[in-house]
C-alpha cells in the first residue's frame, strides 16, 4: 500500500509540474502584452510621439516584473540566434530584430542596424521641430515597424534624398541595410541548438515563489493574489458545498426509489424529468430564475441579487441562517439540479445492478429483507462506484462556476477567474489554475485510497499482483 501511495504521489507531482510548465507557456502565447496594457502609460499618444521614452519606461517596468530574464531553463533556437535575445523586451524592437535576423542570419549587423536607428532618432528628436525633423521622426518610427528587410530598403530608398542635415547619421543606416541585403543564414545554421539559460529564469522564479506560498501580486490592482483568492473562496465553498449536499440529499432517495419502485408510470415520469433536468443548461435556468424570482416585473421578487456583502457583515451563517439560505438558494439550485439528476440516475442503475447480484438472493433466503437488506447490504455495494466522483467533487468544490457567479453577482472564484482572464492578470490565473490542478490531483489520490479502503476486492488484487 505504501509503495502504491508513493508511486501515486510521485506521478501526481510530476503531472503538476508539467501542468505548471504548460500553463507558463500558454500565457506567453496569449495575445497582448502585459506591460503595454498599463493603459495610459502606453497610450497611442506616448507610443508614437515619444517612442524612446516609452521604450525606456517599458524596459523599467519589464525589469520590475522580471521579464528581463530568460523565460525557461533551456532555449531551443537556430544556431545563428544569440543566446541573449531575451534581453530585448520592447515588443517592437524584438519584432524588428527577430525578423531581420531570420532573413539575414547576421546578428551583429542586425544589432548594429537597430542601434543606428535609435541613435539617429535620438539625434533628430533633440532638433527643434520643423518639417524635416518631423518627417524623419516619422520615417524612423516607420522603419522600426517594418516586417521585412525589403520593406525597410524600399522605405529607406524613397527617403534618403531628404537626409539633409542628418546625412551623417543616416549614412550608417544605409550602409548597414546594404550589408544586411547580402547576408543569408547558412543551411546548417538553421539546425536547432539547445542552450542552457541558467537557473535564474522567469519560470524558476515564479515556481519557487509559488512553492514557498507566495502566490505573487496581481498585475491588475497590485494586491496579493493569496488575499484575492482567500476573499473569493468562502463564497464558492458555500455555494458549491451546499449544492453538492443538496444534490446528494435529492439523489439518494430518488435513486433508491427508482431502483425499487420505478417500473410503473411514475417511475417513467421521474426518469424523464431527471433527463430533462440534466439536459437543461445552467445559464438558461439561472437567467430564468433571475427573471422570475428576483425581478419585480412579474411580482415574484422574493429574492435579491445583491446582498452578499450584507451577509458577510451580518456576522456569519448562524447569526441569520434564514437570510443566508434565502440569498444562497437561487445559485445553489442552479448548481445542484444537474448534478442531482445525474447522481440519481447513476445510483438507480448501480442499486439495480447490485439487486441482481447472487448474494442478495442468498441474503433473502436467509430471511434478510426490507430496510436491513437494502441499506445494510445493497446500498454499501451500490455506493462503491460513487467513490470515483470524489475525485471530481474536490476541485468542483473550490473552482466555482463562472456563469452562475456572474449571473447572481457572487464574488466567488469563478468571477475572479473571469475578471483575471479578461484583464490578463496572469499571476492570479496561474495560481487559480494550479490550485485546481493540485486539488484534482489530490482528489484522484484520495478517491484511489478510498476505493482501496472500501473495496476489499481491490486490496486483495493489489496484494496478489506480481511485483513489477
Amino acid at each position, binding site marked *: 500500500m505504501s509503495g502504491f501511495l508513493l508511486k501515486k504521489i510521485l506521478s501526481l507531482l510530476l503531472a503538476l509540474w508539467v501542468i505548471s510548465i504548460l500553463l507558463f507557456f500558454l500565457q506567453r502565447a496569449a*495575445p*497582448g502584452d502585459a506591460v*503595454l*496594457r*498599463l*493603459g*495610459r*502609460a*502606453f*497610450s*497611442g*499618444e*506616448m*507610443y*508614437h*510621439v*515619444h517612442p*524612446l*521614452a*516609452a521604450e*525606456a*519606461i517599458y*524596459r*523599467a517596468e519589464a525589469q520590475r516584473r522580471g521579464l528581463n530574464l530568460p523565460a525557461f531553463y533551456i532555449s531551443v533556437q537556430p544556431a545563428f540566434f544569440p543566446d541573449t535575445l531575451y534581453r530585448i523586451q520592447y515588443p517592437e524592437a524584438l519584432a524588428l530584430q527577430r525578423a531581420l535576423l531570420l532573413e539575414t542570419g547576421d546578428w551583429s549587423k542586425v544589432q548594429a542596424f537597430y542601434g543606428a536607428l535609435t541613435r539617429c532618432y535620438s539625434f533628430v528628436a533633440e532638433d527643434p521641430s520643423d*518639417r524635416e525633423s*518631423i518627417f524623419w521622426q*516619422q520615417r524612423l518610427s516607420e522603419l522600426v*515597424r517594418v516586417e521585412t528587410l525589403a520593406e525597410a530598403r524600399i522605405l529607406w530608398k524613397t527617403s534618403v534624398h531628404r537626409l539633409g542635415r542628418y546625412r551623417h547619421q543616416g549614412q550608417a543606416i544605409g550602409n548597414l541595410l546594404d550589408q544586411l541585403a547580402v547576408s543569408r543564414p547558412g543551411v546548417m545554421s538553421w539546425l536547432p541548438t539547445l542552450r542552457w539559460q541558467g537557473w535564474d529564469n522567469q519560470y524558476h522564479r515564479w515556481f519557487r515563489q509559488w512553492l514557498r506560498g507566495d502566490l505573487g501580486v496581481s498585475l*491588475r*490592482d*497590485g*494586491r496579493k493574489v493569496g488575499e*484575492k483568492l482567500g*476573499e*473569493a473562496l468562502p463564497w464558492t465553498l458555500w455555494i458549491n458545498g451546499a449544492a453538492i449536499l443538496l444534490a446528494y440529499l435529492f439523489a439518494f432517495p430518488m435513486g433508491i426509489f427508482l431502483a425499487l419502485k420505478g417500473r410503473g408510470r411514475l417511475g417513467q415520469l421521474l426518469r424523464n424529468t431527471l433527463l430533462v433536468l440534466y439536459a437543461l443548461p445552467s445559464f438558461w435556468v439561472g437567467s430564468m430564475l*433571475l*427573471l422570475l424570482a*428576483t*425581478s*419585480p*416585473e*412579474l*411580482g*415574484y*421578487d*422574493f429574492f*435579491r*441579487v*445583491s446582498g*452578499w*456583502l450584507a451577509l*458577510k457583515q451580518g456576522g456569519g451563517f448562524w447569526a441569520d441562517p434564514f437570510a443566508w439560505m434565502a440569498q444562497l438558494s437561487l445559485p445553489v439550485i442552479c448548481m445542484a439540479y444537474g448534478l442531482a439528476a445525474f447522481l440519481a440516475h447513476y445510483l438507480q442503475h448501480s442499486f439495480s445492478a447490485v439487486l441482481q447480484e447472487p448474494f442478495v438472493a442468498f441474503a433473502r433466503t436467509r430471511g434478510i429483507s426490507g430496510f436491513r437488506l437494502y441499506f445494510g447490504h445493497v446500498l454499501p455495494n451500490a455506493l462503491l462506484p460513487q467513490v470515483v466522483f470524489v475525485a471530481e467533487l474536490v476541485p468542483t468544490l473550490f473552482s466555482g462556476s463562472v456563469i452562475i457567479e*456572474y*449571473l447572481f*453577482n457572487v*464574488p466567488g472564484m469563478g*468571477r*475572479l477567474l473571469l*475578471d483575471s482572464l479578461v484583464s*490578463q492578470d496572469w499571476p492570479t490565473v496561474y495560481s487559480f489554475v494550479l490550485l485546481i490542478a493540485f486539488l484534482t490531483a489530490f482528489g484522484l489520490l484520495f478517491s484511489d485510497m478510498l476505493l482501496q479502503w472500501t473495496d476489499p476486492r481491490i486490496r486483495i488484487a493489489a496484494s496478489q499482483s506480481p511485483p513489477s
Partner: protein
Amino acid sequence: MKAWIPPLIIAVMLFTACRREESAIHRRTSNEVAIRLEAEPDRLNPLLSTSTYAHQVFNPLHLYLMNYDPTTLVLVPQLLEESPRVQRLQSGPFAGGTRYSFTIRKEAVWDNGKPVTGRDYETTLKLVFNAFLPTLGYRTFLESIREFRLDAANPRKFSMVLNDTYFAGLEALTNVVPVLPRHVVDASGVMDTIPLMALITNPTPEAQEAAFPGLKEFADKYLSERFSRDPVGVAGVGPYRLVSWEAGQEILLEKKTTWWGNALAADNPAFVALPDRLRFKVIPDPVTALTALQNEELDVMQSVAPDDFVRLRTDSLTQAHFAMYTPSSMSSYFIALNTRIPVLSDALVRRALAHAVDVDELITTVFAGFGTRTATPLHPSSAEYNAALKPIPFSLEKAGVLLAQAGWQDSDGNGILDKRIAGKKKELRITYLANASKQSSLVLAELIRSNARKVGVDVVIEARDANTMLERLRNRDFEMVSAGRSITPQWSPSQNWRTDSDNRSGFGDAQTDSMIDAMEREPNQSRRWVISRKLQQAIYDQQPEIMLFCPQERLLIHKRFEAVPTPVWPGYHPLAFRLIKR
C-alpha cells in the same frame, strides 16, 4: 376526475396569490445614492488607474485647480480663488512662453486641517514625471512646463511657465490631474529635494536613477495597495472619503462631516455635495443590474441597453419609481480608415465607403434611435461645429459612381471590383476589425459588409477581443475599424490629427499640421474657431474617418432624488442629487 388535478389547481392559485403587488412607495429612503458599476475599478489612484470606472469613484474624493461645470461645460475655478493671471512673456529666459499665476483658496484644507498649498501641486506633478511610474499618458499635457515657482511669502501662491502659448494650456495645467496631499503621498519627503524641472528634462528611468537613486524605491512604494485601496492613502481634498472597499462587491464613500467646501456650496456649484453616502455596487451582468434597479437596490443606472430602455418606458413599476433621461453624451462613434494602405489611400474610395454606410439604419437598429448624426469629430451641439458640413447620406448609387471614378471596375464579373495596381490586378477587399465582445460592433460590421458588397467592395470581418484591438490600433495594424472617442469641451486636434501624433488613420499633411499649430496657439476663440472649421472641412473632404453619430446616454435615476442629467460622462452628477423629502 384525475386525483392530481385539484392539488395542481390549488398550487397554481397559491402561486399566483403569492405575487408581490406593485407599490408606489419607495423601498429606500436614506440620503444614500446606490450607483451601479459595470466593472470593478483596479485602483482608486487618479494617476495610476487604467479603469474608466475608477474615475466615477475617485472623482468625489478629489478636487482640481479648475474643473468643468457639469452643466455649462465651462472651465471654472475649483481649488483656485479665481482664474489664474495669464501673462505672455516677451523677454527673458522664457521669451515666447506664457506665465500662469495661481492662488489656492484660503478655505481649502486637508483632512488634518493643514492648508492646501502650491507644494502639494508641485508634488503631484513630480509623481507624474517620475519615470518609474506608469504616468506617461499625463506627461504629454504637462511636458511643456518650463518653470514651476512657489511664492516664498505665500504658500498658496505659485506660478508655472509654459514654453509657448497654447489655447488649451490652462486646461492642461489645471484640469489634467487633481491636487494630491503631499503629507500622504510623500510623507517622508523623498521628493522634496528633487526639482520638478529636473524630472521633466530627464524623462528616462536611467537618467532619473543616476541622478536621484531613491526615486525607484519611492515609486515601488507608491504602486502598493496603500495608495490604491487604503482610505488614508487615497484621501483627497474633495467632499467624500473612502469608507470601505469590498472586493468584487461594492465601494462605499461617505461625506466628510466637517468639509470646508460646505460653506461655499450656496454660491458655487463646484462645491455642491448633497448625498451623505455614495455606494458603488459592482454588477457586471446587465440583466442582473436591471433586476437590482427594479428592486430599488440601485438608484442610478447608466448605459441601459437600448431595447430595455424602450421596454421600460411602458413598464408601470419602473415609471412609478424611476425617471428616464437621454442626455447627449460627449462622445462619438466613427469608423477609422487606414489611409496608409494602398486601397484606402484614395479619398474617392473612402468617400464611397462613407456613402455605403447606412448610419440611420444603424442608429435605429442597434441603438433604438438614441443617437444624433455628426459629420465632424465635434459634437453637433457645439458652437465650434461646422454646421455647413452635412452628414454623408447613404447612397449606394453615389458610392458606385465614386468607385468608378477612382478606376475600380468588375473586370472579371465576380461581383468584386478590381483595378490594376503596379501591373497586378488587385481586388477591392478590405478587412474590418470588430470588437468580438460587443454585439453592436458585430452588427455594425455586418451592416457595412452587406451594403459594401452591393457596390462591389468585399469587406472581410475580423472579430477580435478588446485588448487585441487596442494593440492593433496602437500598431496601426488595421484597415477599417469601428471606434469611439470622448469629446472634450475644447477640441484639441493635435493629439489625433497631427501627422506626428497618435494619428491612427494617417490623415494630414504639412498644411493641416500648420492649421493645427495655428489653432493651438490662437488665444482668441472666434479666430480659433475659424481655423477649426477649416480643419473640420479638410477632414470632411478627406474622410479618413467615417463619422457615424453621437450616442445619447440612457439613464434611469430614482425619483426620490431631484437630479439633472449632464452631457459629461456618465451623464449625471451624483453629488448634486437632492433627496426629495416626502
